[in-house]
């Protein structure tokens, strides 16, 4: 398969899978699950098959056609997008295994709709990852919002629908109200919306227009959950946990920070933005989000909401690193996309496993649960340590690179933010670990065992990945360095 046709297939395959899942759902649940698993395996093969070309410096691309003059649907594979697509496709498989265990263990309704929308969301994610210009990115970004709405509102009861309304409301308001005008402004100013190394705005915009356009992009890409457009994330916790795992590790939030990073690198250009006077605020905003979100997380009693606020903070690590505008920090931003994904998906898998096994949702209910669910809590421990950034987890690697970039730029704000937030992360994760492992549960607590096998299998795999990333992160560094070294495109 040529690289160009791989791009087509990467988007069409999950779409075809969605149709297959919907049809298979009428026949049998096992066949339906099989379709999901086969589709995700095939997607991994297609997407990861693009890696050799990328590592060698190739940048395959295709243009589907012009919709309006100057506005075309085009795809280009470059290191950032490759990273995102590889991450999403790989984790979809594991998430699907987990979903089977969770959905069956919880005896959830409407499972066919669930798996179908999952596949649709993955198709949209592939489109976002491989977008070659702003219009294509926007198209698939919106499709991602719409395809994840049925997943967030899955339960269908009043409270869920209300929260899903917040989810959709914030994401659509930011994308139509801020992201779209930013895109149109870029097209009008630069004449094009193509992603090009070094940016397309040099000589077209001056301060303070640059800062304003950047603000429209950053707040318009609501999926990155930079404050104050972060409210949709805690609201989305009403979704079943496999959906939260998808939202927080695989597709939606990563699409947000990926889009911001891509726009900083390929629309503005790292050097262009560094020289501009009106773009410095982004770093402070990201730093504020990190600290504020970590403080809010400290006060959360619901496990998933705590993880939601932790995610908001971790996402702003990526934004802050990208905003440092130094090579090492840009690499750190990309690496953190991966490291956080592994760690957070593990944490959510564990939270969901706990719910399936014991119906527990609050932090204080986790007293002594380590004894009953050792595998789950071991994975949770690994994920938590990765969030804090303790070796030998993947979180340590990305934090290292971000800190190195901060030192390179002599940015004291960034350095202190990382230190303080690490302390805060420890402050809300370590007590949970202590409670789970070293305290005894109350005498009248109902007995329960481990989570379903498939769920435990999935979370063990992601925990191992978190540990493995500490050792085997080299190829990721190598690939992302190509971006900052200016290779090709």
């Amino acid at each position, binding site marked *: 398969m040529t690289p160009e046709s791989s791009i087509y297939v990467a988007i069409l395959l999950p779409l075809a899978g969605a149709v297959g899942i919907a049809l298979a759902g009428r026949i049998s649940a096992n066949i339906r699950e099989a379709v999901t698993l086969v589709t995700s395996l095939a997607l991994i093969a297609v997407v990861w098959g693009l890696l050799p070309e990328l590592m060698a410096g190739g940048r395959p691309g295709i243009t589907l056609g012009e919709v*309006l003059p100057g506005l075309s649907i085009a795809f280009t594979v470059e290191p950032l997008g490759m990273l995102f697509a590889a991450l999403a496709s790989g984790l979809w498989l594991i998430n699907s295994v987990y979903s089977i265990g969770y959905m069956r263990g919880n005896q959830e309704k409407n499972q066919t709709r669930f798996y179908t929308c999952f596949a649709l969301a993955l198709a949209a994610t592939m489109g976002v990852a491989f977008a070659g210009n702003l219009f294509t990115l926007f*198209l698939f970004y919106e499709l991602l919002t*719409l395809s994840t709405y049925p997943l967030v509102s899955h339960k269908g009861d009043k409270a869920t*629908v209300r929260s899903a*309304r917040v989810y959709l409301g914030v994401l659509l*308001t930011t994308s*139509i*109200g801020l992201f779209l*005008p930013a895109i149109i*402004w870029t097209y009008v100013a630069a004449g094009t919306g193509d992603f090009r190394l070094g940016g397309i705005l040099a000589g077209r915009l001056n301060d303070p227009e640059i800062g304003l356009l950047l603000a429209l992009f950053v707040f318009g890409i609501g999926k990155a959950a930079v404050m104050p457009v972060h409210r949709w994330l805690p609201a989305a916790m009403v979704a079943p946990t496999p959906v939260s795992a998808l939202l927080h590790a695989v597709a939606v939030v990563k699409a947000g920070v990926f889009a911001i990073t891509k726009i900083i690198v390929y629309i503005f250009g790292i050097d262009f933005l560094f020289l501009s006077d009106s773009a410095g605020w982004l770093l402070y905003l990201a730093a504020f989000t990190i600290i504020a979100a970590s403080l809010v997380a400290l006060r959360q009693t619901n496990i998933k909401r705590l993880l939601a606020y932790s995610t908001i903070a971790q996402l702003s690590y990526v934004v802050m690193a990208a905003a440092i505008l130094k090579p090492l920090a840009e690499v750190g931003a990309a690496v953190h996309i991966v490291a956080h994904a592994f760690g957070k998906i593990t944490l959510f898998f564990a939270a969901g496993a706990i719910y399936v096994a014991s119906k527990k949702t609050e932090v204080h209910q986790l007293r002594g649960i380590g004894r009953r669910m050792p595998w789950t809590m071991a994975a949770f421990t690994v994920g938590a340590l990765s969030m804090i950034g303790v070796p030998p987890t993947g979180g340590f690697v990305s934090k290292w690179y971000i800190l190195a970039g901060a030192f390179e730029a002599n940015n004291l704000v960034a350095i202190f933010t990382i230190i303080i937030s690490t302390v805060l992360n420890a402050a809300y994760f370590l007590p949970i670990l202590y409670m789970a492992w070293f305290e005894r549960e109350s005498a009248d607590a109902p007995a329960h065992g481990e989570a379903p096998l498939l769920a435990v299998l999935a979370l063990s795999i992601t925990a191992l990945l978190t540990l493995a990333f500490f050792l085997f992160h080299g190829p990721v560094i190598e690939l992302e360095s190509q971006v900052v070294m200016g290779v090709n495109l």
Partner: protein
Amino acid sequence: MDLLAHLPALQVLIPMLSAPLIVLLQPRGLAWAGATAVALVSLAVAVALSAAVMGGEVMDYEMGGWPAPFGIALSVDALSSLLLLVVTGAGAAALLAAKPSVDQQIELERQPLFYSAWLLALSGLLGIVVSADAFNIFVFMEISSLASYILIAGGPDRRALPSVFKYLIMGTIGATFYLIGVGLIYMMTGTLNLADMELRLGDVLELNPVLVAAGFITIGLALKAAVFPLHVWVPNAYTHAPHMVTVFLAACATKVALYVLIRFDYMVFQRALDEHEIQFALFAMPLALLGILIASAVAMFEGHLKRLLASSSVAQIGYILLSASLLSAEGLAAGTMHIFNHALAKGGLFLAVACLAYQYRDLRLDQLGGAAARMPWTCGALVVCGFSLIGIPGTAGFISKWLLITAALESGPWGWALVAVVLVSSLMAVVYVWRIVEALYFGETPAGEQATSEAPLQLLLVAWLIAILNLYFGVFPQVPLTLANDAAALLVEGAL
């Protein structure tokens, strides 16, 4: 005999002459079949005409061979052909789907009269579009209006009668104002032919009567076009009409009036009166902005599905008027595209509503709870057309929205304020479309009657055809876009 040359006349004559023949088709189902066949033939004629004028050609036709300006002249150019496609397309689609819905709402004995009135309305609207003569436009305007009144009042809903009465009064005032304006121009120039008017106005010394004429014509057409604040007849008329009539009228009736307004203003007044384009913009833009914001806001709180969509239509007319008031080729192209795209979106939405109405008597949102569980295909088509209304990328509505925003940005320093209005109203559209979605998919099933099954296949197929067209023209808008650009070029060239 060259058929192509006679198409402009045939476009009007085929439905007009078929109308009385339909009355004779008494056996059940035959009246519908006859009307649908005529509508499809008219659509074919419109497609042929569009193909002929693509590329900036203009087809002129003289009725009876009498040369203009003595005879009645017809003219088809890119702008007319786009409107012809919209009107015949809406008519054909609505009629194709009509049978189950009309059978439910209108007694069999009255159906031949009903379909006959439909064809009269169709021929009236088409006549307006192809006419190149101001009085001819008036004649066809009256034909289409009177036929529309019959259509709207034809259903079982008794509240349609006061609604039609209101529409009749306002519509007649509008037509009368238009006629007064035309009369004034005739006094000053001695001609009723539009092209001739344009020439002769250059020789007129006393321009005040012409300005007054412009005022009368603009107000009259604004009434017919449901421009805010003259739109008050729309919600009730659309709500209480038979459902298929709403599909047809919502897709094209007001747009034809807007077409006449734009053509008159750009081709006659702006070329004759100094600074008239500024006056037009100063009149049209604030009303358009108010209409967009207020009508969208009303729709956000509306409880009845049809009335909600009717308010939305008033807002969308505001978009078209706003585009026209930008006075640029880009603006006009955006507005013309939106005529096409909105017809697709609103037509599709009302088709889905007709499907829902087949099973649900009461179309208030709180009575439609949980409809999606029993009518998934209907609600799916509604959602797709709703996305097009909002302007989600990948749908036709996004194309015209992009064009409008780009045109607004390039129109001057106030462009940003206009863009803000468009975006805010898009968000309001998200709110009211999502209210419908939430009611259909998550609403509590009300006690009382519930849908037992999906809508009939005939209704569903046409609804989904329109929904798919919304998606198709969102990715391949080249054909309507070419026509829109040609139309804009025709209108703006030669203007100051």
